[in-house]
């Protein structure tokens, strides 16, 4: 069927919002093997394929699991067994964008285009994948990154490195990070087998099919303990998020027991200590029934 030229423009204009919406899709879980959990808000969920990632999501992959999130532009983030990741921010756009923090595990970021704005921080280093694919493994105080293709910028205090394809960064405990031309055997041993191959794309299957995670229960202290004890820049914004959980006696007692790891919870747990002096005096003199 032939379409008259003016009508073609009408169709094109009508199609634009649809295409734009497709391009603005957030990262979608397109591949999941084994159990994986999601903490969204103050609730713990079980992940299922098709779930869209949101800012603030905490994703935890089981010890034998594997998950892959794909962006509409072809970029993908794969999480290996035992990986914990927080999506700090996820701005939507035509290219992959997001700020993530990984406390432990193995991560592969691939298909990164020049327009992508991705940042992955870990307790050992922070990585800005510029293009191509990179793999990182973080265990305790050790962290390593291999640039499979493309390039990436890496900051590991006190140095910054511009890593090229084939280069390998490694840092053990508090030692100085080193860049070498080949990945170490220990790194390859720690890598999930699936990361040795290109990440498969299954975005077409879930582009128009969003799934909701399966609710389990509200988070306990143990569920988010790692994050509440994370570096200050990560854990402090979480106080407002989990403040409501301090009403749960078990959660509160755990917070109190571990207060030295997250002192920013002190005003939440003991607000009276932070009242202005006159208000504090009034509160002290007030009858117990008036005290909340």
């Amino acid at each position, binding site marked *: 069927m032939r379409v008259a030229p003016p009508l073609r423009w009408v169709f094109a204009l009508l199609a634009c919002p649809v295409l734009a919406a497709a391009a603005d899709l957030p990262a979608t879980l397109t591949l999941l093997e084994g159990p994986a959990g999601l903490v969204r808000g103050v609730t713990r969920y079980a992940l299922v394929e098709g779930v869209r990632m949101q800012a603030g999501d905490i994703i935890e992959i089981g010890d034998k699991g594997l998950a892959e999130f794909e962006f509409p532009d072809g970029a993908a983030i794969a999480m290996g067994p035992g990986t914990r990741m927080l999506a700090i921010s996820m701005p939507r756009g035509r290219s992959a964008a997001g700020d993530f923090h990984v406390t432990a595990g193995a991560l592969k970021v691939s298909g990164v285009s020049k327009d992508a704005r991705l940042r992955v921080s870990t307790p050992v280093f922070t990585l800005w994948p510029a293009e191509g*694919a990179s793999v990182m493994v973080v265990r305790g105080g050790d962290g390593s990154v*291999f640039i*499979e*293709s493309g390039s990436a910028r890496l900051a590991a205090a006190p140095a910054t490195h511009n890593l090229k394809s*084939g280069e390998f960064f490694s840092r053990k405990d508090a030692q100085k990070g080193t860049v070498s*031309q*080949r*990945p170490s055997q220990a790194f*390859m041993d720690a*890598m999930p087998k699936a990361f*040795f*191959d*290109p990440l498969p794309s299954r975005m077409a299957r879930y582009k128009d099919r969003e799934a909701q995670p399966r609710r389990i229960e509200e988070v306990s202290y143990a569920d988010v303990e790692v994050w509440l004890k994370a570096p200050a820049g990560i854990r402090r914004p979480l106080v407002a998020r989990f403040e409501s959980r301090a009403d749960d006696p078990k959660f509160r007692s755990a917070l109190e027991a571990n207060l030295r790891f997250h002192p920013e919870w002190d005003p939440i747990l003991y607000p009276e200590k932070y009242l202005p002096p006159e208000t504090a005096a009034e509160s002290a003199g007030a009858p117990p029934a008036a005290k909340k």
Partner: protein
Amino acid sequence: MKLIVKFNLVFILVFLLGLGAAGYVSNELLQRNAREEIVLNARIVMESALAARAYTSTQVGPLLQTQMKYKFLPQSVPAYSANEIFDVVRKKFPEYSYKEAVLNPTNPRNRANDWEADIVHQFRNASDRPEMIGERDTPAGRSLYIARPMQIKADACLYCHSTVDAAPKTLVEKYGPANGFGWKMNEIIGAQIVSVPTDVPVARANRAFQTFMVSLTVVFAFIFVALNLMLWYMVIRPVTRLSRLADQVSQGENMDAPDFEVKSGDEIGVLTQSFNRMKKSLVQAMKMLEG
């Protein structure tokens, strides 16, 4: 000389000539077939190796590209896969061999030995020669070989074999920087050589020839006996008896003997009837003379 002797002499002469001619033709045919079979076997082996190479370079290699950035996987190399597949085949057919003999190989197991190097040099001296077929003696017996030149025709080859700096780091890490570099476009770097044993098909052809000749001899012998028996019962015996009676009648003896029994309608039967008629006429003539 008796009829049967003449007959048998001619029969044996024909038999020997026939046996000799059939033997010569069949032997030539079987030997030619055996050689064609050997060459065909070698070609099948060569084509299988080429198929393994093509499959590896077009399908396996691309899948392993990412892994190759971590560790060199020889499974991605066409020559390696062809050799590995053929090694499995050799477990059942140890006398067959396939080798990608290279003068300056990356993998030491592909290094050309003396006679293989000669073949490579012959290809280098005549670069338009597509194939070479020959025979050679090996410890396992005589074998036929087919060789084809390995010429660099794609840039992809030079990715691993031009210079150490240009080669994948993982390849240098595995094989070192000493060998397998410095290859040039259009250079004949080696030869694919398939060797197949000639003994087995030739022995099979010889066995077939022997079986054929023995069978032919048995058939001739059977025919010889059958023809002799037929000749004896159908010709020689009745003719001998008829001639003996004719002798007696001609001498006036045994004139009242009964007629010779006519058992068949063939030429001997007709001769017997004629003889009986002649004997009756003779008896009547004799009686008329005596009367």
